[in-house]
């Protein structure tokens, strides 16, 4: 084999970003573009500028996400398919009627096999709950008996749970309009709805890291916190009837909500994930740290995931808080009012800013940072839940 030095040097060129995209990536673009254009052609007239902007933005976002993280393509497609199926069932059964009221809608859903057992928002959310709990149990089992097969099952269950959660949210969105056009709103407006968002978001972020680091063993920890959210959700549903679709109070009726709340939950989800990895870290350290037959990933890796996830959360939480301030400026007459929810968002943010500084400038690692991440979850939970339970303020959603 003789290669000229020139040829040797030649091959060191990095292939460009575009040439690394394969047929599947371009297929994905085609699919998203077709869907977006079809939506614009079919419904463009009913949309205002802002809606159209959001649609285009969503399409670009989906393409980017799909390129960066291929499995998200599957989730998007399955979610879209199931949601459209549910919408089609409703339309077929209601003969295209709208403003049918919640009673008629519930009766319609109960009269149809698919809606009742699969894709009405309530059933989809129940599926999500069941799948997440099953996934938790399976992850724990896989960890204990070191079964790669069980691990793969747990991963599949988590994917399915997240997908059903997304379907539940999409269908609920539609249902709110079917009940009454006036009621229609994106389902991120109360505590019940955002708990679903939280569970789904945390699961997806976890799945990303799972794929990235090729390690399933943190699932037992992360899914535990998701199961806790599911437990709350079920209690909230069955004890408080929180799943009923209510119209929005005037202050929430704003475009800002659509972006402020989801951004917040990337933050909450990441912080929760970091905390659970922190727990795993501490457990492992208790048990003697890195060793031969490790069940858990190396301490260094967990440390890394913790940092990355807090960084991701911090970035999105920054955006969310800024968006919140802009919304407040429009709804309450001031971008900052020291309202308890606002203030606690600031506290959460300051807390992680301190964490990041220690980590980056002092190079702190290990158990103290893990503990701090765990404590961070308590602070975050208070901002998320405690404020609604114990403090009163301008934030008008989700009183317990």
């Amino acid at each position, binding site marked *: 084999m003789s290669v000229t030095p020139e040829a040797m040097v030649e091959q060191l060129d990095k292939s460009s970003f575009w040439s690394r995209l394969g047929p599947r990536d371009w297929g994905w673009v085609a699919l998203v573009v077709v869907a977006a254009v079809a939506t614009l052609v079919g419904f463009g007239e009913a949309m205002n500028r802002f809606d159209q902007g959001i649609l285009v933005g969503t399409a670009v976002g989906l393409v980017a996400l799909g390129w960066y993280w291929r499995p998200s393509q599957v989730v998007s497609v399955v979610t879209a398919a199931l949601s459209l199926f549910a919408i089609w069932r409703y339309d077929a059964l209601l003969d295209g009627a709208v403003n049918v009221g919640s009673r008629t809608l519930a009766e319609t859903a109960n009269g149809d096999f698919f809606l009742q057992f699969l894709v009405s928002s309530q059933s989809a959310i129940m599926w999500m709950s069941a799948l997440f709990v099953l996934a938790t149990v399976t992850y724990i089992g896989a960890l204990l008996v070191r079964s790669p097969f069980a691990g793969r099952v747990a991963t599949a269950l988590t994917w399915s749970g997240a997908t059903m959660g997304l379907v539940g949210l999409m269908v609920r969105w539609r249902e709110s309009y079917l009940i009454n056009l006036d009621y229609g709103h994106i389902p991120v407006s109360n505590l019940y709805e955002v708990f679903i968002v939280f569970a789904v978001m945390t699961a997806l972020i976890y799945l990303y890291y799972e794929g990235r680091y090729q390690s399933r063993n943190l699932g037992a920890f992360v899914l535990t916190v998701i199961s806790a959210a599911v437990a709350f959700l079920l209690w909230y549903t069955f004890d408080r009837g929180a799943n009923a679709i209510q119209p929005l109070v005037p202050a929430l009726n704003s475009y800002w909500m659509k972006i402020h709340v989801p951004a917040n939950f990337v933050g909450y989800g990441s912080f929760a994930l970091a905390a659970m990895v922190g727990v795993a870290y501490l457990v492992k350290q208790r048990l003697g740290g890195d060793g031969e037959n490790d069940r858990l990933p190396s301490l260094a890796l967990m440390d890394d995931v913790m940092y990355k996830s807090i960084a991701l959360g911090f970035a999105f939480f920054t955006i969310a808080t*800024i968006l919140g301030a802009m919304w407040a400026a429009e*709804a309450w007459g001031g971008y*900052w009012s020291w309202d308890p929810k606002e203030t*606690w968002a600031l506290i959460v943010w300051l807390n992680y800013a*301190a964490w990041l500084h220690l980590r*980056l400038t002092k190079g702190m690692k290990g158990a103290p940072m893990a503990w701090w991440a765990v404590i961070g979850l308590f602070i975050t939970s208070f901002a998320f839940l405690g404020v609604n339970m114990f403090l009163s303020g301008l934030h008008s959603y989700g009183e317990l």
Partner: protein
Amino acid sequence: MASTRAERPRQGGNPRSLRRRLFEFLGSMTLAITLLVALGVASAIGTILQQNQPYQDYLIKFGPFWFEVFKSLGLFDVYSAGWFLVILVFLIVSTSVCVSRNAPRMLKENRQLKTDVAEKSLRAMKLNQAYRLGVEPGIATQGLRRYLGSRGYRLAVAERDGETLVAARKGALNRWGYIFTHVAIVVICVGGMLDSRMLLKLKELTGNLAVETRDLPAAEVPEISRIEPGNPSFRGNVNIPEGQRASVVFLGLRDGYVVQELPFTIEVEDFHVEHYDNGQPKQFKSRLVVHDPDRLDEPLEKTISVNHPLIYEGHAIYQASFADGGSKLDLKAWQLEGDVGHSDALEVEVFEQMPFKLGGERYRLEVGDFRLFNINKVEGPDGEPVERNFGPSFQFKIRDAAGQAREYQNYMSPVEMDGARYFISGMRASVGQSFRYVHIPADDKGSMETFMDLLARLHDREAMARIIERTVGTALGAAGGADDRRGVVSGSMLRLVELFNEGGYDAIGRDVEERVPAEKQEKVFEAYIRVLQTVLLEAYVETLQARGVDVAAMDEAAWAEHQRFLEDAVAAINGLAFYGSPVFLQLTDFEHIQATGLQITKSPGKGVVYFGSVLLTLGVFLMFYISQRRLWFRVREAEGGSEVLAAGTANRRTMDFAREFERMNRELGTALGGGDSKESSRQE
């Protein structure tokens, strides 16, 4: 960030100057983290202790001692307290110092590529690896250039003593991220301060402003509590009734307020609430007219609603709330004392206070509020909670001569509950309590008259004596009791009725406890109640007859309904014993006049804060997602090719760079005919 941590060399034992030390302290990480945590804790205090409540409430809650302590610490208004401001100022100073110290060095680092790095330094780096390549140094260097260049590294190559050093650097934007983020913090804080109440505080400190605590109309507030229209930033509220105008807002300050004058006048043409089909409010809208002859040729008309403010001349006008604007109410005042059951018509306005006299006592009626809709959760037919509109209600206080007041909420129309209809009135003795309700049954005409007639009769001694006489007659008549025994029985029955009128069942219970031996109390009480019920039934029948109802002709169903009415009426009379008001005010008609609650703000710092926010977002993403990496490759001749010593640092302490470093060297080795890796080290 190795260099941030590096100790600055001490200069020949010279003590560093105070200024230098102060500068270093202000820019230190320890201070930064302390400030972040301190700000967090201080903010938390302000959420746990409700801010800016009336001082009276704090006094009750904490007692005089702690009230004074908390007050002097500024805990009732944490976010305007001096010490809170000090934390913020420190944060601004510290962050500025930090940036001014780090930025020049970072930017310099960004510009230069060090090519005079000694082998020792290379080997001391966290990541370093030495290996052989099968090509001569010239080709190897060319390969490195190609490899690094196509991956976005900037390069500098130096040759010295037969060695080539390739220095490479990537991710300069990361450093800009640091600068943006930290400058943004300063910008946001400064913007926020522009919009804060510092100016007000300053005016107050210099004696140019005094907080008004009395409840006065805006026009009567003295000059010392007023602020000229020129104030650059404020945030205040004002309620304007429909059809009226205002040119001031009120700025709540501690336990009072000051009046901010506006450079224009706002007229409210109309306020209305849009509702969802379940009665829940959907949107609040005010039709405003801005009068400003200096700047406007003709008045500006605009409808505002929640989330859709009006911006005029740097002032933002928001739909913030609504209130009653002095609705006119027609009342029927039923006397519960004195001439019980008698009613007078009365006209009042919301917010009006009206003294009156009854039974020799002085009282004052204070009308507080009127509400057109009352959406309440009730149990629906299938046990699920459903929302129902209870219709209009009004709220008022009745204050006695001693100044004690009770608060009432009366609904206008009878509300259906379990198949019967009731006039509902809630009562509470203090604001903190929840209402206790009295349900007065409505008769078949939907009026309160039957009940009031019955009540009047029960208070009418003569009528009751007659009724009791008749009852006793039927009971004892057959047995032919003696007259004196009849007298005793009648007398005690009349007393029972009076006790009941005054204090309900409780009064009868207390009476039994006082006069009957313990072991017989229960029996006697039960007997009393039975007797009372008989008398009440008689009184009710007589009331019905007096109202022209033919009791004898009633069928069973109708009679059952009347029995239910009587039961409800007795329960209501029992409840009225604790009602505490000498009158029952029934709302008969109203003219609804609303006031819109506007919030008007001027915030010149808003643009600054938004600019800072954009900078912050940009900075944070650059800092997190662009990592700064520096690499060195020392290439020199070796037998059969060349020898490479690679070393690298990155400012992200993540595993990614370590992995990438390894991959890089592996790929270079594979492509350039590399041999085995001689030594490699990674220190964590």
